[in-house]
């Protein structure tokens, strides 16, 4: 019985804090995306349009590791039973992707364009049974300076 109470408190705490943090993170992502939206970013190997004479090309990257909260982990485990969309993890990877790209862009605000953008994903604690899982997203690209 005691175990159950602990588990329920963990789920409730996980939900409350997970939601607060997620909301804050999304607010921050939206604000910063808007601030740096002018910086052209593409996954193409060539620049978009004509940027003129190239002065410099530099490898830039941005990485982030985000952990899933306890509530989402439980929901996901239950979801494994029936199958279907794991909605809880959708926001997790969405935040991670956008945060990684943001950090990449913020590392080179003076670039003319960012080209050849690539994303790598890896899960940390993979296969570690009862550990809380987290996701890492690494964004890397070439920053073009004119």
């Amino acid at each position, binding site marked *: *019985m005691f*175990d*159950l109470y602990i*588990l329920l408190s963990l789920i409730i705490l996980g*939900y409350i804090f997970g939601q607060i943090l997620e909301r804050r993170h999304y607010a921050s992502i*939206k604000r910063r*995306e*808007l601030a740096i*939206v*002018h*910086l*052209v970013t593409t996954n193409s190997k060539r620049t*978009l*349009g004509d940027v003129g004479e190239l002065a410099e090309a530099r490898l830039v990257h941005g990485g982030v590791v985000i952990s899933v909260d306890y*509530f*989402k982990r*439980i*929901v996901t*485990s*239950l*979801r*494994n*039973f*029936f199958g279907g*969309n794991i*909605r*809880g993890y*959708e*926001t997790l990877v*969405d935040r991670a992707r956008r945060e990684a790209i943001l950090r990449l862009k913020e590392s080179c605000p003076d670039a003319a364009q960012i080209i050849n953008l690539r994303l790598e994903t890896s899960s940390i604690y993979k296969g570690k*049974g*009862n550990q809380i899982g987290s996701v890492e997203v690494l964004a890397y690209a070439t920053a073009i300076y004119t």
Partner: protein
Amino acid sequence: MKYHAKLPEKNHNVSHQNPIREFLALLTGVLTFVLVVYWVLGFFVDVAVDYISPEMELAIFESVLGEDEPNTPPIVPDKTQLAMEVLLSDLSQCMNVGFPIELSYTQSETPNAFAAPGGKMVVLSGLLKYVKSENGLAFVLAHELGHFKNRDHLRGMGRNVVLMALSFLATGNSYLSKLLMPVNEFQTAQFSQGRESDADARALDIIQCHYGHVAGATEFFETMVKPEGDLLMHYFQTHPEARARIDAIHKLSQERGYTEGKVSPAFWLEM
């Protein structure tokens, strides 16, 4: 074409449904599934138990349990154990369990006695502090005899195996199986409460047969009655609450016309 830098208006990569609703829906589904499967498998356990003969039971558990457990050293057969064995064999005269019962008297503070597979009745010495007369002890021994008669030790064990297998299969890991605990405990408890009441009824018949009256039957529970009570916990207890059991025993002895006589003194205090 001119390039316009702008952000998408809506995030289409994430679901916007309430996660709590999803959680509750999933949980209800899994719990219902486990409940149904457990109930069905429990029924099969009951059927299977009827097919396990005492000889077969002994053969199965001799290999598993081996000899005496090494961590609970039994006392060298002292006078208490010998007297208890005599009492047990007298009580057995009143109800034929169908196989020999071996009494194992073990030192432990816990006031308990239980029916183990292979016809082994374990009595913990802490129990003697909670009963004041021979009749009180006789009721507890008779209660365990009732369990043996009903093969409850096998039923309980079979259900536990089903339970463990099920919670691991359903959830795939141990921490999530805790979430299924209320279902499991509730079912086990409900099942077990029925078995306990049944064993109480049998025990009452046995001590009426042995002593000619039922005085001292509720002695153990009288001392176990706890002042505090958690309403929720009541449904999760495998043994019906002491107070409810005392009432049930009194009611039953009235129905059957049993009377109360003089209790025999506690032999273990005189040794």
